[in-house]
């Protein structure tokens, strides 16, 4: 579990939690997010849903970007846990996954997922997602 401040002094931006069992995928998403040109706060990382919950318990997070298929606790299980807690109701949920099946998308709709991103994605797709989410805040 790591948290890397992205904003300089005086800059405000959302804190993001990236959840993926692949460390290199987390690195890629973090890099793309940093290059998106939108102000960001601290970027936290977790390798599975359980680590993500521990981070959410301890730190304010505005956006969660999560994979679905992960060991220990899946992204779907994480989203269900978040759904069950009032204090996390305002967190924006973004799914980033290789599974673009109709059933997964439908399931995500029922778990308050705002954006569903299919891997592989182009960097500009993530830029557009971040821009739309930060503009909407």
């Amino acid at each position, binding site marked *: 579990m790591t948290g890397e401040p992205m904003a300089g002094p005086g800059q405000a931006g959302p804190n993001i939690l990236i959840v993926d069992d692949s460390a290199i995928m987390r690195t890629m998403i973090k890099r793309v997010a940093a290059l998106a040109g939108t102000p960001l706060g601290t970027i936290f990382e977790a390798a599975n849903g359980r680590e993500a919950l521990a981070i959410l318990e301890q730190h304010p997070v505005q956006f969660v970007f999560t994979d679905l298929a992960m*060991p220990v606790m899946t992204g779907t299980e994480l989203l269900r846990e978040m759904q069950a807690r009032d204090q996390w109701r305002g967190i924006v949920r973004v799914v980033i996954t290789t*599974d673009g099946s109709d059933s997964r998308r439908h399931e995500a709709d029922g778990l308050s997922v705002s954006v569903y991103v299919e891997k592989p994605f182009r960097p500009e797709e993530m830029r557009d997602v971040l821009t739309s989410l930060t503009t909407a805040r």
Partner: protein
Amino acid sequence: MSSPRSPQPADGLAALGDAVRQVAEASLFACAEPCDASRTAGLLQARPPAEAWLTAAVAFTGPFEGVVRVTLPGPLAGDLAGAFCGTQPDALDASQVADFAGELANMVCGRWLTQTHRRERFELAAPVVGGTAPADIAALTGRDGGTLGIVVNDAPVLVGLTAAHPMTGA
């Protein structure tokens, strides 16, 4: 209502090749195109004989089950991993390159299943990544039509598909 038919090797490989191309273009800033057996053999022969190769395998279950394998030269894996996370290849260690190879196979398998069987639900297992001896590489291309050669940035990548027919026998 008929059961989903597990893919015949030719159908599956062609679609897998397209998935590799999409992954390469979207996330790796690389050019990828399928090549025939003759060109694949030529590309393999041109590689250094003692070169290390990686194979990443992703097993999937659902209406039918199988395994997708991506086999590529170690140096190419390093280059693509660097492109993927925006760093120089020599800044990555072996475990990071292996992680990338697993994620590559994961994206190829997931993209293939999403595009060809979007209405079905599959579960993908965590990738398994290991070394492949150069002597075993040529044997991969001889597997009963279940392997496709793809050239990525002028280097050979082998994509294999093993799909089991469902118990209902469609």
